[in-house]
């Protein structure tokens, strides 16, 4: 008979609850993940109808240190990731707040929310490529007919401009889910706290700052962490829109890993880049989780 204490009983149930998920993850991902770590310490070649792998210790990683394109990709990636997380979370929060306002509760808005996210990334990238086209893109047409520009602009020609548009498109695509997540979080903020803050003289901004933000801490933490993971994995739009160009201005680490692995077939080196992405994501995520952790219950003696 199960005769254990309250907490122990819950712990045991907890292990049972976690088990299926753990098994699925282990069964599917354990080998590929371990293998990718191993690959990163190997030099891999396609020879004689097969593959040879040769341990080369940390040669791949050492080579990374001297690889200028890689260095550039790291810088780009960091900028992109910080920019994206900041933009997506703040726009997502703004959208969530709008949709949580009584005026924004119309179901139509929630449907609109899903729209940018529902489109397949491949199609999305091509769509934007056409929108941004310097010769027949609708964005140029629109801006010109509004008198905002005189000549059609080559949006993707200048490094920063191309970079900015990639960021914008990815933000556009990422906002819906984060907004949805934050909206679900907003629903949990007790109304009574707003009443109290209102009585305490807090304006809208202050209520937001002192009630909404702190009570949404966990939802925000999840949003930031997930968006960080995703922003470090951006791929499709670069592949379709710029191929990392012009002149490697928009090469992000994941795209570089792809290029090295699949175009150059330098699989070990590609795995090394991927593992750096992993390490970077891990560090960033841990940092964010730590930063966003709610304050420990403080008990004075």
């Amino acid at each position: 008979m199960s005769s254990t204490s309250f907490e122990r009983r819950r712990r045991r149930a907890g292990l049972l609850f976690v088990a299926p998920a753990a098994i699925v993850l282990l069964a599917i991902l354990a080998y590929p993940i371990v293998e990718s770590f191993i690959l990163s310490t190997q030099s891999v070649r396609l020879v004689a109808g097969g593959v040879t792998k040769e341990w080369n210790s940390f040669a791949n990683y050492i080579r990374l240190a001297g690889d200028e394109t890689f260095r550039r990709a790291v810088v780009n990636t960091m900028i992109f990731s910080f920019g994206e997380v900041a933009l997506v979370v703040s726009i997502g929060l703004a959208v969530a707040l709008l949709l949580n306002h009584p005026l924004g509760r119309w179901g139509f808005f929630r449907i609109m929310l899903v729209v940018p996210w529902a489109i397949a990334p491949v199609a999305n990238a091509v769509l934007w490529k056409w929108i941004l086209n310097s010769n027949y893109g609708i964005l140029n047409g629109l801006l010109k007919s509004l008198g905002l520009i005189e000549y059609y602009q080559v949006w993707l020609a200048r490094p920063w401009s191309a970079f900015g548009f990639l960021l914008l498109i990815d933000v556009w695509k990422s906002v819906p889910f984060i907004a949805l997540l934050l909206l679900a979080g907003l629903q949990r903020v007790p109304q009574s706290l707003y009443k109290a803050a209102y009585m305490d003289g807090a304006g809208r901004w202050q209520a937001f700052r002192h009630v909404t933000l702190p009570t949404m801490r966990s939802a925000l933490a999840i949003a930031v962490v997930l968006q960080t993971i995703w922003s470090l994995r951006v791929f499709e739009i670069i592949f379709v829109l710029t191929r990392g160009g012009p002149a490697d201005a928009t090469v992000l680490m994941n795209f570089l890993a792809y290029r090295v692995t699949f175009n150059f077939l330098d699989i070990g080196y590609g795995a090394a880049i991927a593992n750096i992405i992993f390490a970077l994501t891990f560090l960033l995520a841990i940092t964010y989780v730590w930063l966003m952790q709610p304050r420990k219950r403080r008990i004075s003696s």
Partner: protein
Amino acid sequence: MSFASARSRDRGFRVLVVVGLILFVVWSAAPILWLIVSSLMQQQALIVQPPDFSLGNFTLENFTEVIVSAAALGRGILNSFIVALFSTAVALVIGAPAAYALARLAVPRANALAFLVLATQMLPGIAIAIPLFLVISRLGLIDNVLALGLVYLSFNLPIVIWILRGFFLAIPEGIEKAAAVDGAGVVGTFLHIVLPISIPPLGAAAVFAFVEAWNEFFFALILTRQDAQTVPLVIAQFAGQYQTLFGQMMAAAAISIAPVIALAIIFRNQIVRGFADGMMKG
């Protein structure tokens, strides 16, 4: 709700909200509107400056072309449906209990474990593509819809667990205790109390898992041949080396969004439903 109305007396703010909502709709919808417009136009009208919107250039041909000639689209939608439903359903069914356990059930080192779960998603897919292909092909499961679904499951599960865990952490302990005294075991509490009050995050997680599986491209590309092709692959087929059939591609994309939008319409109220008031009063 009535408090909100008392508070939103302030006209200026309402105007701000309305402007915000309009901007939001424009921001969300404008590119998609262009997608739909361009799917209804002949390419020659789109490549001129500015686009030629004269009536004669509008046509349903892209759609008929996509539906009739690319029969792959129908199969792609079906496959995507199977894959997405399968991976979403399983992700929720096994992810929600795991999230609950990691949030509430005193699992040892729950925080570290939760982070480890998430860490499986930190390695870019490109890095595991080749070993994963190897495993799946050894098992003879290349071009198998369910194998693809399982792979997506392994991608969605950690995210689902994370989303739900964050929300489960915020459930007031009191009602779990009440349920324990009322005779619900851990499972009963989870099923009857925790899940029903977590509909908004469950909705968010489900929509997430579904859309991700619906739209995933890279693994679909390498793990399928013809039979298990999903919608994104079909859409990608319109972009060739020398020529992109832009109109048809957009028509296919428009068709592929439809089921997701339909789901959003059906579940629009479930996606975000709040018990905030009742939750915190208690």
